[in-house]
């Protein structure tokens, strides 16, 4: 779709749309369940497996990713009419990389321990498929406000799955929650759940549960 076509479509829309119209609310709700970036689109799985051993680093990771997706969506959406489509990927990368650098520096300054635990995975948000995917699929063709909502929605969808996985991994893997030994001092840690293999299995079971609930059927 060319830029002109997009702008004509936009002009046809009513000028004043409420900030949280039904359509805009959908931008947040959809990625939480029916269009979840991890369990349905299976994007960003790498970090979902790597950072979910403990809840606290997971929470920081979730906040970082949500911030980066929302802000990069906003910036790209603002620039969408001036970016030549032939170099749009490199522009997107530049925007995302700058944002990730900011987030990374913030973490190192104010949450050094967590930053150490997350190691390279903060830097790898740059290549997170969810970020790039939302820029390509949404921000390039939509106004800034819906783009921000879409970014927040996808960030929350990602966060929700990560927190569920991290909850079970920390609880059953090391018997603790947020670092507190809730299952007693003598709980024998489960090595499978401590390793990324366990995250992969937990994620699979989560997808199973979601599909069972939503009545998913395999396309023939």
């Amino acid at each position, binding site marked *: 779709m060319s830029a002109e076509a997009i702008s004509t479509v936009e002009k046809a829309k009513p000028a004043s749309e409420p900030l949280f119209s039904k359509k805009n609310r959908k931008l947040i709700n959809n990625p939480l369940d029916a269009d979840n970036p991890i369990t349905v689109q299976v994007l960003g799985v790498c970090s979902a497996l790597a950072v979910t051993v403990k809840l606290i680093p997971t929470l920081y990771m979730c906040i970082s990713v949500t911030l980066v997706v929302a802000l990069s969506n906003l910036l790209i959406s603002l620039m969408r009419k001036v970016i030549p489509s032939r170099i749009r990927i490199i522009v997107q990368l530049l925007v995302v990389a700058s944002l990730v650098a900011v987030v990374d520096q913030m973490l190192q300054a104010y949450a050094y321990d967590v930053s150490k635990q997350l190691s390279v995975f903060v830097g790898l948000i740059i290549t997170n498929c969810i970020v790039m995917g939302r820029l390509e699929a949404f921000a390039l063709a939509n106004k800034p406000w819906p783009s921000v909502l879409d970014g927040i929605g996808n960030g929350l969808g990602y966060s929700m799955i990560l927190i569920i996985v991290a909850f079970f991994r920390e609880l059953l893997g090391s018997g603790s929650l947020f670092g507190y030994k809730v299952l007693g001092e003598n709980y024998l840690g*489960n090595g*499978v759940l401590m*390793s990324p293999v366990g995250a992969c299995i937990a994620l*699979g079971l989560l997808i*199973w549960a979601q599909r069972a609930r939503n009545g998913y059927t395999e396309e023939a």
Partner: protein
Amino acid sequence: MKFLRNTLDKLKPNFEKGGKLSFLHSVFDGMETFMFVPNHTTKTGSHIRDGIDLKRTMFMVVLALIPATLFGMWNEGYQYHLAMGQTASLFDNFLFGFLQSLPIIVVSYGVGLGLEFMFCQMKGHPINEGFLVSGLLIPLCLPPDIPLWMVAIATAFAVIVGKEIFGGTGMNVLNPALTARVFLYIAYPGEMSGDLVWVTGLKEGVGIVDGYSGATTLGLLAVGKEMTISSWDAFMGWIPGSMGETSALMCLIGGIFLIITGIGSWQIMLSTVLGALGMGMILNAVGGNVYYDFPAVNHLLIGGFAFGAIFMATDPVSAAQTARGKWIYGALIGILTVLIRVFNPAYPEGIMFAILLMNVFAPLVDYYVVKSNINRRLSRVKA
């Protein structure tokens, strides 16, 4: 017999459609066909039904496992009394092992069958006998001291993640019994490896004879030590180890039974042995350190090699299906087993990883065997 038939007939209406307990139809059906030969007849077309159905196949494998099981029970008692510095009669040894392993077997069957029944009921499938062999294989490849709750979660993991997710009996990619074992091995390494787990009572450490070591040969090899037992002992199996896999002789008896009845593939067993032997000899020829120099023949006798090659690798569901594929599959299991033992002694039990790895690759092996066959025949057409 008559009494059983009458009772079943009387109960039957309850489980039919519309009966009070109709939601348990699969369970009842399974129980009935377990006790009596089902009288299902083919309704259309001319199909030939072989007498050897899933139930009989499974039962044959269980029969083949009996020598290893009985010997394992005796050996458990023998090892325990040896560690305690006592001498006990044959019967006392056996009784000790029997009482020690019975709860493990009961838990394995209870959890596994319970879950299988539940899944069949939920999916509305008839109940099948797919778990009969796995239920016995799981206890046989675990250490005798294993806590029962671990057996329970490992069995649950094997049945749900290893089997039901893929569609139940006959659809699993991995061997369920080894899935249970590898789960425990990774999840609770402290209970599944080391010198203390292979003989009952060593972990408590009460009344152990001075200087007694429960180390297995693979455990010693892992720290770079020579084998301390004779090859004959390893072959006969009166050494510490998992319940059913210490005795190569008893596995061999089971293996011969499987080959005679045509249930186990002799190609897989033979190629696994040849693969391990060949790889072991190559490494022996290179030589240099204690791992390389470990005699090739002894690789076949120690650890779970015989048990794995005979009972696990030949699992008809997860093994390769084509004739040539079976040779490749078996040989690679043997080669990988020795390679893992020699190059990665931190994971002493190579056969488990080798079989699971080849389970994953078996469809690929089959694919290329079929493809090469097609190419060969195509080229004949062109010529």
